[in-house]
């Protein structure tokens, strides 16, 4: 039954996919080129010493991979969810279909995961072509990015289903997503941050996603470390799913 | 107040308003009656100085809208067809801000807002946001807003469309009070009861043209009979019955669901129908309305 909800979103996507190319694909690519190559020249040759011999572009490519997974996931889990609850009311139509709450949530979450998979894979290919990623371990980094996306998708679903207007999203984007993007190890090691901030950065799911992806493509991963990140991200995804079920039930079944 | 001569509005190849002549006098309530798409709203937009005429001449309050739009609008009140309330503001703020658009002082609009909230029976909701208000409340707020500059001329485009009967009567009451206080009302409507209730004089529009003009009573006297007999038969097609009724009324109109017999004495005609051995499912004798006038003039009903 969740498959029916998934195919609904897929059909819908066929009509609007062009626009998502820009935010989902070109955006991360622009960041990679500007930061990796442009700014990378300053970092690598900088008097500050750079990253101790590692090319900056190779450092941030996996970081951007994980960060774009987060951004795609959050973007697809905010306004579309609110729209399906409030404006176009597709969820209500599905309930009448009849699909259960779990089918509706899982179907939509699966669609978001697919969107994250597409953008992550596309980014990985381009990063490889540009020489920013060189390891075959990238084949595991893409699923890692999808898992990172899921760790955001389900909690944000739960959050979005409790919102009645979009002002909460503003706070989410500006005070949660944006700072995570900038401080959770995407652009520089979190060790650069002052102690308290570093500790906070290390509990964010994005930092675990970034570290997992980076460890894989740069070949610095340890089995224990990677499994730890995977477990942490899975915990977020599963906990979020549980909350999302509760939020959706509260909103849709009254 | 308004003087239009051969006033025309074209959008590309489509003529929305086709060379109409209109004269509105101070203090009267003047109506544009017609179905959707007759050109009423386009005419109202031209009178409201937000749509330049394509052709013909138009003078409002003795001024030319092309040159003196702001000066004219300063003396107009406009109630658009769709409520365009500011949903980011509260009920009271809607009035305050709108008053400021007219360049009125803050102190003046504050006093005026209290007065208008009272008038629109919205004092209790003054600090509520606009969105949760009922349709009738929003409409009353839109009308209150249009009065913030004490307009000499109030333009109302379909003032009661979409409201329940009770809300309509409340609104009509407010509009009567305004008229009594000397405000000139110009309104469009496709409800004949509204036109009969509110208008001293009206024009009937169809396809961008004026097809009749006069007071509601004059129009009925001129274009219809005193009474109408409505007959319903147990049949899908009412047309065959029309031939069986010839000679019983001055005119017979066939509608999909009933027949209308135009006559000066409905009860007598009903008796005559019975004598011919016809047995309608229902018989209703009523006074002629503007709906009948419109049907006679255009061959169509107003609301369809």
């Amino acid at each position, binding site marked *: 039954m969740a498959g029916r909800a998934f195919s609904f979103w897929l059909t819908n996507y066929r009509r609007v996919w062009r626009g998502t190319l820009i935010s989902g694909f070109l955006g991360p690519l*622009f960041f990679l080129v500007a930061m990796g190559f442009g700014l990378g020249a300053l970092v690598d040759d900088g008097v500050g010493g750079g990253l101790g011999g590692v090319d900056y572009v190779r450092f941030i490519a996996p970081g951007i991979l994980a960060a774009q997974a987060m951004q795609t996931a959050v973007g697809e889990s905010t306004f579309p969810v609110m729209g399906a609850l409030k404006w176009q009311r597709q969820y209500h139509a599905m309930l009448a279909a009849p699909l259960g709450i779990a089918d509706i949530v899982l179907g939509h979450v699966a669609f978001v995961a697919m969107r994250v998979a597409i953008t992550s894979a596309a980014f990985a290919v381009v990063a490889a072509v540009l020489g920013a990623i060189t390891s075959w371990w990238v084949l595991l980094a893409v699923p890692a990015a999808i898992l990172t996306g899921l760790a955001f998708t389900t909690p944000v679903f739960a959050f979005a289903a409790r919102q009645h207007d979009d002002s909460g999203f503003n706070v989410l984007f500006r005070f949660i997503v944006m700072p995570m993007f900038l401080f959770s190890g995407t652009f520089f090691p979190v060790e650069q941050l002052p102690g308290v901030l570093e500790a906070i950065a290390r509990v964010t799911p994005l930092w675990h996603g970034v570290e997992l992806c980076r460890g894989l493509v740069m070949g610095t991963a340890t089995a224990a470390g990677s499994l730890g990140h995977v477990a942490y991200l899975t915990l977020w995804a599963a906990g979020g799913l549980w909350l999302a079920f509760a939020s959706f039930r509260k909103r849709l079944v009254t | 107040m308004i003087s239009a001569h051969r006033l025309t509005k074209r959008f590309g190849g489509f003529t929305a308003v086709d060379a109409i002549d209109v004269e509105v006098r101070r203090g009267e309530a003047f109506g544009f009656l017609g179905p959707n798409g007759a050109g009423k709203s386009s005419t109202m937009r031209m009178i409201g100085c937000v749509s330049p005429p394509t052709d013909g001449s138009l003078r409002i309050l003795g001024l030319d809208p092309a040159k003196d739009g702001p000066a004219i609008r300063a003396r107009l009140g406009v109630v658009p067809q769709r409520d365009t309330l500011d949903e980011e503001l509260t009920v009271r703020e809607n009035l305050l801000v709108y008053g400021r658009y007219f360049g009125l002082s803050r102190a003046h609009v504050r006093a005026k807002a209290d007065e208008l909230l009272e008038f629109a029976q919205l004092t209790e909701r003054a600090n509520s946001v606009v969105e949760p208000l009922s349709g009738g409340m929003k409409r009353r707020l839109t009308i209150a807003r249009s009065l913030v500059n004490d307009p000499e001329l109030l333009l109302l485009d379909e003032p009661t469309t979409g409201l329940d009967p009770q809300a309509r009567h409340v609104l009509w009451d407010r509009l009567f009070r305004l008229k009594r206080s000397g405000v000139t009302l110009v309104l469009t409507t496709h409800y004949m009861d509204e036109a009969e209730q509110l208008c001293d004089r009206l024009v009937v529009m169809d396809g961008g043209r004026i097809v009749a003009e006069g007071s509601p009573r004059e129009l009925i006297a001129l274009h219809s009979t005193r009474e109408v007999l409505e007959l319903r038969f147990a049949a899908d097609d009412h047309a065959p019955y029309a031939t069986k009724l010839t000679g019983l009324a001055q005119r017979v109109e066939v509608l999909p669901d009933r027949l209308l017999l135009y006559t000066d004495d409905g009860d007598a005609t009903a008796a005559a129908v019975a004598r011919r051995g016809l047995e309608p499912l229902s018989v209703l004798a009523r006074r002629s309305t503007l709906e009948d006038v419109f049907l006679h003039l255009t061959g169509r009903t107003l609301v369809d």
Partner: protein
Amino acid sequence: MSAVGTIARALPVPAGAGLARTLVERNARAFRHGWVTLVSGLFEPLFYLFSLGVGLGALIGDIDAGGGRTVEYAAYVAPAMMAAAAMNGAVFDSTFNLFFKLKYAKLYDSVLATPLGPRDVAVGEITWALLRGLLYSTTFLAVAAAAGVVHSWWAVLALPAASLIGLAFAAVGMTVTTYLRSWQDFDYIQLALLPMFLFSATFYPLSTYDESVRWLVQATPLYHGVAMMRDLMLGDVSWGILAHVAYLSVMGVLGLLFAARRIERLLLR
């Protein structure tokens, strides 16, 4: 006011009643209800400044800011963040917010039934965008100064400079908005903004680019905004700054004229 009216009528400028300030007042009231959004806008440029300036800055160290000056990376990137914030704020106000008011809230349908004309709408909305921008840039400048990355008293002029950037982008953004059909079209605005934000010598000097593409970077309005801001905040002011001012001024005035025209077309049919 009548003198202004006469001049306005003589010029090819759309009609207005000189009441644009009342629309600013309206926006200020509306924002009292949505202040969280207003305040949240303060933080984005600051987050960028600290992420890049502090986090990355330590990896980079001092860099050559042109003209033989060497500054720490945070001081180099701060003016760019301020310029980019002015651009982003102005574009957001003049596209997203304006589109909503134009197409959904139908705000101007009611506004134009009053003495206000399309010129008042254009001037009012842009003035509001500039005031809001001024609030943001003042905060940013104060924080940047407190963080020690502002090097000169010339930086006081960074405030009007930010307003000039805002004006130029708001005016053009407004014009573009009048052509948009649906929310999906906003992706194209993003497509113009993001590369400009990333590539206009914001994060690294123009000299990083190959000679053959520098002219392209220099043609973008944000490049001029960033360069102007950097000259002021690093206290490296020369007559050359007037070229940046001229570029943005022309863009702003032309944008304003077009915007008011387009709004007139759209609303006064």
